[in-house]
């Protein structure tokens, strides 16, 4: 988490998929401070978009913690602009929607996810737990 899914009618080239995922990771982590290892991006093809759109981006992102409405607005606006650029599309052809998700209902790395803003302590605890279990870094 976050889980970003990108839907298009036709497949995007592999390099463009990779580049868009880097942009999404840059924007998300740059604005929220979340670690890059949290960010997942899935590309889906064969979908008919709503009128005017060529690419539909949904972001299921953790809510609460140190995030407020202003941050979500900036995240939505920056994501919209940067993903449109990376895909070579006008912003009007890109649909972006962020969906808030409760972090304490999700387990990743074997542990319940932290509220936004408490990632550093969570990562330390997770690495310590993995070390105790003899699990190396992924």
């Amino acid at each position, binding site marked *: *988490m976050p*889980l970003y*899914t990108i*839907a298009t009618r036709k*497949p995007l080239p*592999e390099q463009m*998929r*990779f580049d868009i*995922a*880097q942009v999404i*990771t840059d924007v998300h982590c740059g604005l929220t401070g979340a670690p*890059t*290892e*949290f*960010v*997942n*991006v*899935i*590309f*889906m*093809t*064969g*979908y*008919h*978009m*709503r*009128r005017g*759109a060529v690419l*539909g*981006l*949904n972001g*299921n992102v953790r809510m609460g913690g140190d995030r407020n409405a202003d941050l979500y607005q900036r995240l939505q606006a920056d994501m919209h602009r940067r993903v449109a650029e990376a895909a070579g599309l006008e912003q009007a052809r890109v*649909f972006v*929607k962020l*969906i808030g*998700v*409760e972090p*304490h*209902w*999700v*387990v*990743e*790395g*074997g*542990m*319940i996810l932290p509220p936004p803003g408490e990632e550093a302590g969570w990562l330390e605890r*997770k690495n310590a737990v*993995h070390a105790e279990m003899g*699990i190396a*870094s*992924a």
Partner: protein
Amino acid sequence: MRSLIAIQEGQITLDQIKELEAMLRQHYAQHIGPHKLTVLWNVAATHHTITDREWSRSSNVTMEVPDGLPEDQRQHFLETLDRSWRKVTGQHPDQTSFGAFDQSRYREIFKANFERFSAYGRISFLTKTLTRAMLSKARHGVMITQFNQ
């Protein structure tokens, strides 16, 4: 109740999928309740998923649970499921994600993820998914479909 599972192409064998689904149903019945659970596997094509800036080897499992499920019960269920899953697949803990969402929230999130599609797109998506899932169920005993249609 529904469970949607995203995996990577070529990562988990059909036998493992069957074993994982049986395990998921068993844990769900034991920790959550005797609800009918519909499990849909969604396979991402090679090089269509990225985690932590690299092509992904991750699996993502989401489930509906009854509204208001106590947090300690939910947490114990998710952690138990995570451990059991990794025993079957051998994945690193950083390569798995498990979510148990109140049914009402799950519906909201599911619906919000459909807003980008046209009306035809929604119908087409559901028809394709259902058709593929039913064919897979008849052939393999589990419902498997693909992100890339």
